[in-house]
């Protein structure tokens, strides 16, 4: 049974899928920890869904749909950060508008595109099993650059996320770091749409991170924990998808959630046992 299960690794498409899942987990570990810590996961949702407008427009104009998504995602991320900084419009309202507008534009453009209608399911739910070498190279380059950025600029990224006002008193260019992180968030999300799709991408940026925070509440340790948990859950999900013949990206999210629930339950159990020992 086990050898049959692992025989799937003989296929190039599956090895690509595993590599994509691991690289996506690494990217999401850094960006997702930033998003969860700053409590801006909802912004991630806005960026993700707004990018669908870019996909639709790119299709209509005959361009690369992921380039369109990237442009829309970056513009949305910068717009939300600007609105939040200036405080002119309620941030949650702005996100809701951009979220639904993006989806609406995407549907309209795809609908009016003459001739072949692209398969929307690919964008909504991802297509990790069809990831090619070009996609992998892009994910690899982005994750390496992101790792370098986080290692070199870890302190200002952490401080501007935690207490921007105090960081400003220390001469840190808070706005510059926040706008840069917004662009990074947007690009990370668009790259991950290829693997898990618009509907599910947010889970990859939140579930491993909140699972990691059960083990540690130190930002610099949450990141490697989230990467490991994300990669493990994703690969387990891919293998389950093969065995059970179910959609791969949905299986990945399901496994990440189960992993979270099991670890959370265990931590609660251990805490209760410790409490009883102390009181007993």
């Amino acid at each position, binding site marked *: 049974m086990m050898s049959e299960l692992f025989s799937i690794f003989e296929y190039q498409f599956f090895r690509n899928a595993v590599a994509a899942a691991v690289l996506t987990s690494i990217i999401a570990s850094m960006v997702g920890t930033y998003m969860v810590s700053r409590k801006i996961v909802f912004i991630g949702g806005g960026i993700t869904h707004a990018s669908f407008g870019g996909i639709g427009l790119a299709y209509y104009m005959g361009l690369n749909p992921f380039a369109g998504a990237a442009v829309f995602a970056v513009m949305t991320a910068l717009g939300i950060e600007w609105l939040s900084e200036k405080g002119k419009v309620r941030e949650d309202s702005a996100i809701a508008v951009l979220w639904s507008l993006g989806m609406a534009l995407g549907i309209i453009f795809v609908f009016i595109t003459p001739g072949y209608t692209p398969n929307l399911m690919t964008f909504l739910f991802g297509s990790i099993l069809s990831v090619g070498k070009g996609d992998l190279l892009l994910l690899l380059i982005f994750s390496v650059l992101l790792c370098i950025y986080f290692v070199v600029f870890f*302190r200002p990224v*952490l401080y501007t996320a*935690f*207490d921007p006002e*105090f960081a400003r*008193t*220390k001469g840190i260019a808070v706005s510059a770091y926040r706008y840069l992180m917004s662009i990074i968030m947007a690009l990370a999300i668009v790259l991950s749409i290829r693997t898990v799709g618009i509907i599910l991408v947010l889970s990859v940026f939140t579930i491993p991170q909140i699972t990691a925070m059960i083990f540690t509440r*130190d930002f610099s340790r*949450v990141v490697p924990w989230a990467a490991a948990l994300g990669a493990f859950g994703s690969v387990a999900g891919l293998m389950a998808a093969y065995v059970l013949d179910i959609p791969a990206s949905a299986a990945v999210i399901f496994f990440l959630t189960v992993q979270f629930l099991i670890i959370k339950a265990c931590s609660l159990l251990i805490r209760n046992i410790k409490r009883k020992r102390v009181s007993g």
Partner: protein
Amino acid sequence: MSVPLLVMENVSTGYNSRTVLEEVNLKVYPDDFIGVIGPNGGGKTTLVKIILGLQPIFGGRIHFPSGRIKTGYLPQASQVDRSFPITVRDVVASGLKSRNPLFPHLSSSQKKRVDRMLDEVGLKPVEYKPIGELSGGQLQKTFLSRALIEKPQLLILDEPNSHVDKNFEQELYSWLNELSREMAIMLISHDIGTIAPMVKTIACVNHSMHYHPSNQISEEVLKVYNCPVDIIAHGPIPHRVLKRHDDE
């Protein structure tokens, strides 16, 4: 008299087009210990933000006769997100400026300074604890250490006694007494009775600012200053006696 650290002349500021503070004149000297009082929404925190360079001014002038000064800032406890995954050590270290903005890491001497600070205030045993697991007193110590680590010339504390128990409050005030010999302090509080015995002068802030060159202040003077705060205190300072709360 020594050279002031900072001088504010006819400063006004606000948010969007709404003016919050008008015609503020203030000089802060190196040995000052100023209690900043006033009603909620009167502009106390805004005054601090002007000094810290966080709030642009509409008019007037703020200048530093002896050059840019080092400030230490302790924000209100309610502004802190305790669920953020950050350790005591990282918070204290965030008080240090990076020497190279292109490679903003701590130098080995800065790391030693963090160690010394944590030792001095007794936070070494909890240095790797996340701030969400600290008591109110430990949390204030952490943020005060962050404010003090660069040895500021002016220390600004915004309601430092909120969310802490009485024991820590006493410890905090004796700490501030010692610090006031080394640096100027501005202490914002809504509780004039508690801070009055400690501060040297009082600034009443309620959309404008009245500087009172003593720590003794009466309700009559507060009325003249248009600064409606209750005086609740014991000892030689004029005070109002409240009815026993448990009788009601």
